[in-house]
């Protein structure tokens, strides 16, 4: 069977084609879903890709959470379906309340696009199953608002539940506890600032993103 992936596209999303290309290469059947679509068309996994949904006007992800497609995404997540939010998609997931916390402007107050080393802190999630515990992945970041923040009790919960899936080896943006990616308590929703889809080919600098995306596809297959 083939895993069906829905890639949500908001006005201003710009990584949808990259995500679709890579997921197809990894064996998924991909459908791009315009943000007004109220239905996921039976998708097994949902991808909220990077970009500038609604121009990031007002606040990153703040307008996107009201798009009709987000109701379907929330329902999918509630039912235990897999959802991955990459960069702007992570911001949207936080605004939509599917993940705790928020993303603040980078510590240095400038946009950052460069490679980072990211450590897998929980290899038992549906997105990290193919990683070794403690494995580091070479993944690029590309954001202005990437500093993860939450209150102390939330952070304690995240740590306790193993929800901190990924941490930066060298914190680039002032993110709390070096957090690069977190899951929800159930583990079926992942938000991360680095772009795994940009690290799926040696010619472009790294293949480590495959670890995360192929873990997700394998988990979806298993669930089906």
């Amino acid at each position, binding site marked *: 069977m083939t895993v069906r992936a829905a890639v949500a596209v908001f*006005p*201003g999303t*710009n*990584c949808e*084609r*990259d995500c679709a*290309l*890579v997921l197809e290469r990894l064996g998924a059947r991909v459908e791009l879903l*315009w943000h007004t679509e109220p239905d996921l068309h039976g998708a097994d996994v949902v991808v909220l890709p990077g*970009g*500038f949904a*609604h*121009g*990031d*006007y007002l606040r990153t992800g703040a307008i996107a959470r009201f798009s009709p497609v987000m109701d379907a995404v929330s329902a999918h997540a509630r039912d235990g379906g897999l959802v991955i939010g990459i960069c702007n998609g992570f911001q949207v997931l936080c605004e939509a309340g599917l993940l705790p916390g928020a993303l603040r402007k980078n510590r*240095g107050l*400038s*946009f*950052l*696009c*460069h490679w980072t080393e990211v450590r897998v802190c929980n290899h038992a999630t549906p997105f990290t199953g193919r990683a070794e515990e403690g494995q580091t992945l070479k993944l*690029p970041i*590309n954001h202005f608002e990437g500093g993860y923040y939450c209150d102390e009790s939330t952070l304690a919960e995240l740590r306790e539940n193993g929800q901190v899936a990924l941490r930066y080896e060298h914190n680039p943006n002032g993110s709390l506890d070096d957090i690069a990616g977190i899951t929800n308590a159930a583990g079926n929703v992942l938000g991360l600032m680095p*772009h795994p*889809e*940009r690290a799926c*080919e040696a*010619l*472009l600098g790294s293949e480590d993103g495959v670890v995360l995306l192929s873990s997700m596809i394998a988990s979806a297959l298993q669930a089906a």
Partner: protein
Amino acid sequence: MTTSPHRELGLTDEEHDLIVSILGRPPTITELAMFSVMWSEHCSYKSSRALLATLPTEGESVLVGPGEGAGVIEVAPGQAVAWKIESHNHPSFVEPHNGAATGVGGIVRDITSMGARPIALLDSLRFGSAEGTRTAYLAAGVVGGISSYGNAIGVPTVGGECIFEPSYEGNPLVNVACLGMVETEIMRGRADNPSNVVILFGSATGRDGIGGASVLASAELGPDSADKRPSVQVGDPLTEKLVIEASLELVAKSIISGLQDLGAGGICCPASEMAAKSGTGIRIDLDAVHLREPGMAPFEIMISESQERMLAVVAAERAPEVLDVCRAWELEARVVGEVTDSGLVEVVVSGATAASIPAAALASQAPLLRREAVRPVWLDDLRAAPCGDAPQEDLGGCLLALLASPGGASARWIWEQYDHMILLGTVQGPGGDAAVIRLPGSAAAVALSLDGPGRLCHLDPYEGARLAVAEAARNVACTGARPAAVTNCLNFGNPEKPEVMWSFQEVVRGIADCCRVLRLPVTGGNVSFYNETSGRAIHPTPVIGMLGVLQDATAAVDIAFKAEGDLIALLGTTQANDFGGGDYAAVVNGALGGPVPHLDLQREQALHRLLAQAAADRMLSSAHDLSGGGLAVALAESAMAGDLGFQLTAQPHMESHRWLFSESPSRALVSLAPQELDHQRAAAAALGVPVTTLGEVGGDTLDFGAFEVALADAAAAHDTHPFGAAP
């Protein structure tokens, strides 16, 4: 003095008389405004057109030459790319953030209008000296503007250059180049078939940018430049992204027959150019244009430079399909007019005619100017002045000074603010000789480089222009690509000054001569005059945008040393006296004078062939162009990029500082596995390129034999921020 309306709009009395004779009556105010933008220097090229006609524009790979939104070049069978550069200098000085941002937006729409998906951006930036009072403010604003706009529209910014030089103190340069990939068919700005309708889509039309072409781009700036801020447009990258998608869908579905973007000159420009090219007319009904604010006068609507707008021509029965596509992308679109057989651009408001002008008169009949050109009298003294080749005791210190200088230091603080990876094509991003971009759905790649040596062109505009083309070509050749096409952005002072005009003439002659020998067609570009503030012109600055072709992206070579034990070799010949206009002269000796380096195009071409062949045969571990700072800086850069030092064993046959810092063209630094050396020597000998082995890669010092610099110290110097810290 009382000024008449035409003078206030930047038209001369002679031009006004000609307008009256073309129309057979005095123009209305709307007509006058339309003439003023279309006949401005920026839109009409009236001072430069005759000279630009001398550039070679043809080649078997050229599918579309100059005169359209962008040149189109076939890079592999069935694969075509659009490539063009534009300036946004004055807007960026007046309002750096939005000036630069809308510069990106404009060139991206040019590329899109050809039916090509924008897949790469490069920027050539020039500011005054880093210590200048406004430099940090301007640089931060420009970089921030490019970053916010380019990142949001999802087009990677993959390369460019940033130079700090007192000559640009009052007049920074912001040149933006864009590469696009034709997705289905090449589109053009045409208004064929009377009865076709004209659709305007994208942002609403507002009062921003009124008269940008005439007010900003075609006059000098002065102390009151801040007053011109309302003429700078404000960008909305979200809408631009949607405009790109909608445009490409309209082309892919073969719905429209003509497409042109709105930039300088507003609606007036595509309406008149599309009609003129097709020998038709266009009638625009201003009541149908969607406006951002009420009460706009007809002339304001016609010449407003509001961003993110396109004009499409479509058969009447297919107009609803255009509106549907735009609606799906959440864009406003309206039928605003129709194609006619009148040959006129007619503007109608509430049923009354506000303007009626022959399209050809607007588009191509601005009176060509034969401006006086006089060689500057100071040039002989300048060339006789010291070229800055005086030796220094501390050669290691000289190297560190060059690596730390604002122009020589790493531009990482700039390009880390740009998304340079999106679209999954960036095989080589910023920081090398050229960007290498794999084409979507293809094994082939293009290599892209921008080069604009203002100091060389100040000393010798003809030779400087030749050196600019040669260096840009060498940059792409070092990646293994075959130089294939040129776009150029010619930045100059006030063309009404004979000395400026002379330098322009010499630069065009230099580009033309060099491109002919290297068989490089010039497929388009842009001229930016009036780069002066308070009467001081910038150095003549032709920015050459070179496009090279690599049939196999995986064969691309970069500048980084790769392996301990690799041999280091110099390809080409170092001349002892090539210091004039160079970085050693400027940074170490504070000199700008003397003759510029000597260029031999036969040697240059042989080097390009050798590099392409060596890359295809996978013989090289690295290749790096020798330019500013000569051999020493190239060695340090390759070492820093690979985080590997080197030991030199070669003995210079000239004074050490000449061997290390002379900037002779037609040279490249390569590293290769020892077993490849004989093969490489044979290949080089066959092409007549001298090969000198210099030493070996390895360790953590830059060991020049006579002196050493720790790799870490070089890297620290190279990371020097021009303003001390992030602005």
